[in-house]
């Protein structure tokens, strides 16, 4: 009964938190399925940090936060699209460099302009509690169309992902499709980063889809399960935070990791049987 009471209070007091969290969970979790399948986990964490750098720019120079996040993310995607030097160094080095530049850059920017630890914390870790109607519209008009676009081109995209060369022979321009995916991913990450923060966005992009991959066998099922788990962890984490007076974003991350561990145990037990 207490849980229901807490839940009702949460809905009444923080409706935007729950709406934005739910939207973010659905969008990021479904995108995350492809991040994992394409084995570009480091790309997603690097892009989350690059979006944070954009937010830092916005904070310091008084730009609209979304503009800053999208600007730097677009630059990050463009940088990743440059033909790499994989014959000499692994691609991960470029990602690590991007991650380091973005994370240290954002801290330096904010510190240099006299902003305090709280601003840095809010920027890095985000806070779903302060979501507003503007954030909801941002997710609805930017994140949701990105998700719909992804689903609309799922067939050619999967062709390119699973067998790049065969897809190219069938007439698909693999490089352009990959760039399209990373652009959508960049937009999603930047639109979610303001309130999600780099850590929550990363958890929704990686931990939640990983849980779904452990539980479901077919692609559509994996996407549906990922979206559902995303919603469950956002609501459970919010409830946990409200009930025990904890910061909301880390609470959601803890819930997602808890579910992931449970699924891993279940999957292992199933395999051994």
């Amino acid at each position, binding site marked *: 009964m207490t849980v229901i009471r807490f839940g009702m209070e949460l809905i009444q007091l923080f409706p935007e938190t729950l709406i934005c969290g739910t939207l973010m969970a659905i969008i990021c979790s479904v995108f995350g399925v492809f991040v994992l*399948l394409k084995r570009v986990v480091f790309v997603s964490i690097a892009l989350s940090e690059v979006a944070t750098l954009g937010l830092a720019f916005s904070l310091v120079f008084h730009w609209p936060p979304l503009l800053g996040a999208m600007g730097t993310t677009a630059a990050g995607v463009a940088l990743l699209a440059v033909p790499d030097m994989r014959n000499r160094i692994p691609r991960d080095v470029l990602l690590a460099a991007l991650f380091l530049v973005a994370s240290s850059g954002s801290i330096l920017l904010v510190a240099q302009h006299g902003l305090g630890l709280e601003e840095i914390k809010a920027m890095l870790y985000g806070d779903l509690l302060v979501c507003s109607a503007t954030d909801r519209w941002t997710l609805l008009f930017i994140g949701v169309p990105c998700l719909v676009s992804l689903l609309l081109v799922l067939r050619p995209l*999967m062709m390119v992902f699973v067998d790049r060369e065969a897809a190219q022979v069938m007439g698909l321009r693999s490089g352009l499709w990959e760039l399209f995916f990373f652009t959508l991913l960049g937009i999603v990450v930047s639109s979610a980063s303001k309130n999600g923060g780099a850590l929550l966005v990363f958890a929704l992009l990686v931990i939640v889809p990983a849980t779904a991959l452990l539980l479901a066998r077919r692609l559509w099922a*994996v996407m549906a399960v990922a979206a559902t788990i995303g919603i469950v962890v956002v609501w459970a984490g919010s409830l946990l935070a409200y009930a025990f007076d904890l910061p909301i974003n880390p609470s959601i991350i803890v819930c997602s990791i808890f579910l992931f561990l449970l699924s891993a145990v279940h999957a292992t037990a199933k395999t051994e049987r």
Partner: protein
Amino acid sequence: MKDTTIIECHDVTVAYGREVVLEKINLAIPRGVLLPFVGPNGAGKTTLLKACLGLVPHQSGTITCRFGAHPPAYVPQQKQIDPIYPLCVTDWVRQGFFPELGFWNRPTVQQRQRLEAVLARFGLLPHRNKRFSELSGGLRQKTLLARAAVSLADILILDEPTAGLDAQAESDVLALIQVLHREHNKTILWVHHRLDQCAALAPQVCRVEHRGATVEAVREMFR
């Protein structure tokens, strides 16, 4: 149609960076052949086929391809495929319909029947709901071949289809290649290493070397 040339290479040179892999290749491949590409390791067999498909750029010369109404089907080595994708055998084979279906259309009744027939012919029906990661190397290769077989492509290009397979799986895959050629009338170009097997399957081979590629009768090579 048998004598129409599908691929014509004229003085083709291919290089990876500064390393020239193929130099001044001249070659004409007729439609309707079952043609293994043989040669020593690193001779450029796969590179030549990939250059013909436009997957690898060529530095000089001209490559003219007359593949016809449907794009050719390319079958990579099964070890190049990441088995992580949550797709079952049916999903994989259905990908062969992509040039016909495009982005959104669903398979028609005839296409579904074609799919069932190919799955049955390739012995994949008992495995149809298994994921790629749950298949043996031989079944993975059969799945990729079935994807090519289900398409309307007249020309199949296979990159070492028996690489890494045990003797039984190798013989199964080679038998299926013959089926595709004889029963489905496909032109098949494939990279292979064992000349003795080529002799049993095809009357002629394409011998690829760093500085040339020639189509010659298998018996000539045994002289």
